[in-house]
């Protein structure tokens, strides 16, 4: 209730009200109708101020009345301006929305394994090379101490390629006689003599390439990958083979994983070994994944003198070791039981590939 107020005071109250109200309208988030009721309605301060007009001296009433009208018009125009403004997009921010991710693609598991294996061997000076997949029978077998018709060739179910060379009988005694039968190499060992032919000693090579065998089942695909290590130097020892194996296992499978070698036989190595890696799941006690605490990985051996000779290296001066293992198998053993069928790797279903 406004008592005894002078005209001058009333005018300044009205002007003050106008400024405050206009500001309030501008910043308000309430619906316009509500604001209108609040600032112009019968219960508003403006109404109260208007009623105070009657308390003023008669001659002032019309003058102050004009100010009241001005204030009312000003407030109404501010209100109508608010109505025509588009609905403000809320400047509020919701941090719980999912973020905008950068693009993420996927490399094939085999590529990932190849990169990892390459990195590990690079650290001990074994450089990656790639020897042919389609090769002469000579490099795949004969140079590896397996002459034609040797029963050891049965070990590999080899794919043969239709001869490209015309009847080789006439070339029997020329250098090219050894280059007439073509195969899809069943192992990366065809790279051994090829590497030796580069005539650079010592040799520390990792040959990673596609191999092919005429077999398909839960653990075999007709095309697969192998990595072949070859170390040729003076005084190479079985101890060096073990050392390199242990190094690889520690870095590929994890600390504490070690190698074990057992006797075996390959035509192109002597002594020959089978390599086991200690089981990560049971730490030696034996479990359903392993055989008495060990997992069979692949073959290895000291390079046979006949292979060195085939590569033009004198076995009296140099010796070496070699190993060759399947990339898919070596990798699948790393991830434990989650991958149990190697054919999955070549299904090329993106729903599978995108999991890695």
């Amino acid at each position: 209730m406004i008592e005894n107020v002078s005209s001058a005071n009333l005018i300044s109250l009205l002007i003050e009200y106008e400024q405050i109200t206009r500001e309030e309208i501008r910043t308000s988030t309430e619906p316009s109708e509500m604001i209108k009721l609040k600032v112009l309605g019968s219960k508003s301060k403006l109404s109260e101020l208007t009623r105070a007009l009657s308390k003023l001296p008669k001659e002032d009433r019309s003058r102050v009345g004009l100010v009241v009208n001005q204030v009312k018009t000003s407030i109404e125009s501010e209100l109508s301006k608010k109505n025509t403004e588009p609905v403000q997009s809320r400047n509020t921010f919701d941090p719980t929305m999912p973020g905008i991710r950068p693009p993420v693609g996927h490399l094939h598991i085999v590529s990932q394994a190849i990169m990892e294996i390459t990195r590990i061997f690079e650290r001990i000076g074994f450089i990656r090379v790639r020897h042919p997949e389609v090769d002469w029978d000579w490099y795949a077998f004969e140079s590896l101490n397996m002459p034609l018709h040797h029963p050891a060739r049965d070990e590999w179910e080899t794919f043969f390629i239709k001869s490209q060379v015309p009847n080789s009988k006439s070339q029997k005694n020329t250098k090219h006689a050894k280059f007439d039968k073509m195969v899809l190499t069943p192992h990366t060992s065809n790279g051994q003599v090829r590497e030796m032919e580069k005539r650079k000693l010592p040799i520390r090579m990792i040959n990673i390439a596609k191999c092919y065998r005429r077999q398909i089942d839960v653990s075999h695909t007709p095309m697969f990958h192998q990595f072949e290590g070859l170390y040729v130097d003076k005084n190479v020892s079985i101890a060096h083979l073990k050392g390199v194996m242990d190094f690889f296992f520690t870095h590929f499978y994890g600390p504490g994983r070690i190698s074990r070698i057992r006797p075996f036989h390959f035509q192109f190595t002597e002594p020959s070994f089978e390599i086991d890696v200690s089981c990560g799941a049971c730490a030696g006690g034996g479990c359903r994944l392993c055989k008495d605490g060990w997992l069979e990985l692949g073959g290895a051996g000291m390079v046979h003198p006949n292979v060195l000779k085939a590569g033009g290296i004198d076995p009296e001066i140099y010796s070496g070791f070699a190993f060759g293992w399947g990339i898919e198998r070596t990798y699948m053993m790393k991830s434990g039981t989650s991958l149990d069928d190697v054919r999955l790797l070549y299904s090329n279903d993106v729903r599978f590939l995108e999991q890695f």
Partner: protein
Amino acid sequence: MWLREFLKTDAKPSDIARCLSLCGPSIERVHGKGNTTVYDIEITGNRPDAMSVSGIARESVAILPRFGFKAQFINDPYILKPIFPNIPDTLPLFLKTDPTLNPRWTSVVFDGVKVGPSDKKIQKYLELSGLRTISNVVDITNYLMHAYGQPAHVFDYDKISGHTMTLRASKKGEILTTLDGKKHTLPGGDIVIEDKTGTLIDLCGIMGGENSSVTNNSKRVILFLQTYNPVSIRRTSMALAQRTEAATLFEKGLDTELVLPVFSIGMRMMGSAAGGRVAGPVTDIYPERKKTRTVVVSKNKILAYIGPIKDTDITTPLESLGFTVRMREERVEVRVPSWRDDVAIDVDIIEEIARIYGYHTIQSALPASAPPNTPIDPMLMWEENIKIRLRDWGYTELLTYSMIAQNEGSAYKILNPLSSDWVYMRTSLKQSVLPVVHENLKNTKDLKVFELSHVYVHKHNDLPKETLHLIVVWSGNRFLEAKGLAEALFDLFGIKYNLPDFGTLEVSSDITVLYLDFAKMVELAQPRKAYTPIPKYPPAIEDLSFEVTGDFRIGPLMDTVKTLHPLIYRVTFLDAYQNFRTIRIEYLDTTKNLSDDVIRKVRQKILDAVREKFSVTLKNV
């Protein structure tokens, strides 16, 4: 157990399995209990001497003591030096053989044979070893083969016409029916025996003939043990697909010195098990006695391979295996026993020492010599580089088989394919990848995939050129994305953008395919970036909007403007909206600030050129 007839030891079956697998033949499985333990053993192809019970016993005798067990070899056949009394020839046998095919022939005739079942022990041994028991006489041959690794055979004397046996090479086309009832047409050069009428009665080393076989009625039996030329046996066995246990033994080359001892054991068994009485002299045709082989190994080489080991650690393992060792200053002379034809050179001896000494005792050590100085193969480096880029740009890598069903462009052909889907080596990645993509489209709507892999390009009379190609496939029409990727790749290689020279970009009904000869890009790569100084004066930038008609191509216009004037520093594409195209021009003078006047002159040049060449003018504001 059968093994215990040759091996006296305190080791338990599990110990035997463990120790042998570490130093010798791999024991895959041990089953059974108590007296009936059965070992499943994998023996490598170079060790026919170990493919028998006595062979395993011999290995055990060398290996078990290394692990603290006592082990003694009993009933060693090689100790036997049989001498046969001269029995008069009541049942004559006329024999002729060819030593090049048959290095040793032993045989003798028995009379009064009673064919019946074998005794319980023999039956049990054979059955546990996975062999069929047939009759006492036949079981003896299987027993000898499994116990000693020396196959044996028996013939019915009365079925052999003229009691004449002539061993020779077969002629192509000759017919023979083996014991299993299979009729074979021989390829020629196979080792066979014919009787007086020329009928074939034995496929030597593989399987006996049906017509000369011992039956329940046989009364007079010939016991017959040989060795054969391994190459012939293998050839015949593979050609006829007759992979009998005898064949797999003979093709590895058996010890001729083993024949007579085992033969004498067989003779004894014929007498005791079948009541046979010797009815003639023992025939032993062995014209070329086996010579003893000595192998010399340098001590330095042994130490290089195995590490520092004592002389006794060289001698003991070898002697326990039956080798005779003479130790010298710098070298070791080793006399190889007759049953170890697989030991021929120094490294073979080193293997025998090392495995018995124990691979587990050799410490591991990394190679200490300097690593070789080899440059990295650029093809491999780029392959890895680009794969990682594509992955990080959101693409998923496929890895398909190199083999395809159809021949396109003189592809190399597989002679013995596994499936009709995989017969040719691909000459284009499209052949392998597009079918896979369409399979995936059934389940995934949005695809961004690639493969960077070999194709096999034909070379005349030579191996293919294994060439890396790159294929990138998107679902739907993603032309500009594909073009953008191609442009980015060319940039990485430092090659001026020229898609037709390196590949193709095709849009079809449901996919977009970018295809590049990756190897060619690697060969022409010039990725080195040179530093250009940052301009001291800022460029003046303005946007020009042109009004165009219909299917206007903005590329050539931009190319024209780019090279129009030296002060034009950069032209970039901004916007295409209805029939307006907006480009941004950056004018730059590296030596001074540009005045409006100068810019105006250059801009006029641009507008004139654009109007003249492309009939296009600025948009009316």
